[in-house]
């Protein structure tokens, strides 16, 4: 149990002399507070596993420091860091029974026999493995094997943090839900820091109280699910989180107005001085754009198709070259292929070179 601080941490698999742009993890400084449930979210190859392996000590960073409760652990080996990690694919020790597998991390650390037995029984109960404790682990299904891997991660009560590297990839969808709720329950019960790597936004948003979004080796935003949804700090976050993702279109912005394809949209805040050479875009989530009957004061769009998601309908529309997704209000029926788009000014954000511009009130 510890607070984990990353200080200017960066890593390149090509060594420290590699070009800064080629770093798998670009310099990051951040704090993981004790007892937090974090999700590390991003597409494949964005550096999230690298970050996880740096924290657990499987790889040594090219530069920067990792502190556990203020103590520099960067030069320490994985064994000495007292951290648990669960990998994407099940790792089980072939010759051992399920029980011996679960006991392995404790046995290696010389924990007394009675304590091991109690811990193993406890974890087996939590993961429904009690009946299989005396079976050879190789004879189980992939699901059960991954539960053993999870169990080995959870079996040590005193770890600084538990890291999960996409642990539910091989698990059936239904069991996935159960295991995820179990992990959440365990988190509340044990007051452990958990860091959960995933590329699945649903998984991240349901598990974590803080979601850290990574893109191209950088941490682009860290916040609660609501913050990520309502105020993406980076166009990537807007696009990656939400289904469908945020609408991001090039625009000219001056003061409290944004101009898209010659049409003016009102903004809630004042964006006085935007950098002249920056690429300016406007982002708005489909949930905050309504399709209505076209009128001269609305941005007019050509409807290409309607996606009915059951509870909600989204229209895929085209404005000039730009594509939009917009909400179709309940009961609204489209008469022909043309519609007006009504924006909610409070949720229209301005981005300069993909980064959110705050604006002034």
């Amino acid at each position, binding site marked *: 149990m510890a607070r984990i601080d990353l200080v200017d941490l960066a890593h390149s698999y090509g060594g420290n002399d590699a070009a800064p742009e080629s770093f798998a993890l670009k310099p990051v400084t951040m704090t993981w507070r004790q007892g937090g449930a974090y999700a590390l979210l991003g597409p494949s190859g964005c550096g999230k596993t690298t970050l996880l392996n740096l924290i657990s000590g*499987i790889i040594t960073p090219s530069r920067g420091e990792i502190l556990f409760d203020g103590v520099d652990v960067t030069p320490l*080996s994985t064994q000495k860091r007292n951290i648990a990690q669960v*990998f994407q694919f099940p*790792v089980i020790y072939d010759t*051992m029974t399920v029980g011996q597998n679960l006991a*392995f*991390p404790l046995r290696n650390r010389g924990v007394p026999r009675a304590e091991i037995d109690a811990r193993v029984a406890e974890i087996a109960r939590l993961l429904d493995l009690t009946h299989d404790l005396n079976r050879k682990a190789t*004879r189980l299904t992939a699901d059960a094997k991954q539960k053993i891997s999870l169990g080995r991660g959870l079996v040590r009560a005193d770890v600084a943090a538990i890291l999960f590297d996409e642990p539910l990839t*091989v698990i059936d969808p239904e069991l996935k839900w159960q295991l995820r709720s179990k992990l959440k329950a365990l988190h509340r019960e044990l007051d452990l820091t958990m860091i959960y790597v995933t590329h699945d936004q649903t998984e991240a948003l349901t598990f974590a109280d803080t979601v850290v979004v990574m893109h191209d080796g950088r941490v682009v935003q860290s916040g609660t699910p609501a913050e990520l949804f309502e105020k993406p700090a980076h166009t990537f976050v807007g696009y990656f989180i939400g289904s469908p993702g945020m609408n991001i279109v090039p625009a000219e912005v001056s003061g409290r107005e944004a101009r898209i394809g010659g049409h003016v949209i009102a903004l809630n805040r004042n964006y006085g001085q935007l950098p002249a050479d920056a690429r300016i875009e406007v982002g708005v989530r489909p949930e905050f754009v309504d399709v209505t009957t076209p009128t001269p004061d609305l941005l007019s769009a050509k409807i290409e198709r309607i996606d009915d998601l059951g509870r909600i309908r989204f229209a895929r529309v085209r404005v000039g070259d730009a594509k939009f997704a917009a909400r179709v209000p309940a009961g609204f029926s489209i008469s022909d292929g043309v519609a007006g788009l009504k924006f909610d000014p409070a949720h229209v954000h301005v981005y300069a070179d993909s980064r959110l511009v705050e604006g002034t009130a």
Partner: protein
Amino acid sequence: MDKVVNQKAWLLVLPVFAVVAFSAIIPLMTVVNYSLQDTFGNNQFFWNGVGWFKELLDPSTDLGGRFFASLWRNLFFSAVILAIEVPLGIVIALSMPRQGWTVAACLVILALPLLIPWNVVGTIWQIFGRPDIGLLGYTLNSLGINYNYVSNEFDAWATVIVMDVWHWTSLVALLCYAGLKSIPDAYYQAAQIDGASRWAVFTAIQLPKMHRVLLIAVLLRFMDSFMIYTEPFVLTGGGPGNSTTFISIELVKIALGQFDLGKAAALSLVYNLIILIVCWVFYTVMTNAGAERPPKEGIA
């Protein structure tokens, strides 16, 4: 479903029959034929029934005595070289580099002894061990060790065993290395996380993951060492006395030296049968080892 009748298929099958008949069935039946008869040349044969086999399996006769003596020699030899080559091969595989140019260098060096023809290996060690001009023999004798593989049984055995270890340990090492390379990194990472010692990593991960290739290595090395002929024949000629006369050497002595075709045929059939049985046992063990796994295997 209707069966398609196509007599032309015989044209594809018959050549195979012919080839197998001439390469395996006819020679084997010739040997069976010899083993049941006695001949003094001139194509004159006298029916002997199972007489040769009775003699062969009775240790009190000359033939039986020689057969059992060479059989025990062979089994002892196989046991010794397996006991040396398998652990040594594992140790070499474990200490080999995982990546970089040194991997290729190690593989080439390891493969070299495997590429040398058997009788050349025998000749190399024959000269190497000679007390008068051989590097090994001369050095040992200069150090005050009385080493002479021609006259001393122990020295002869030691040389044959060291020669086989030199020749074949690479095979075990290469197989083990292949087995080690196939272990995903995640296993080692998980072991680090679990705080496993180097020894625990070996017993919990590496050895179990190598067990298939090890079975293959043991099978290949057993078969090869059980059939060994050329190297000891070139090195010691089966001597001193009969101390390094293995079954195959005994067989050649009986068949070509004494021209006892009936005895030799009986001996080769029994020899063949032993190898077939051992093969079958290994095969059963290996397939059973595979069947222990559950039918629904994960990606790991």
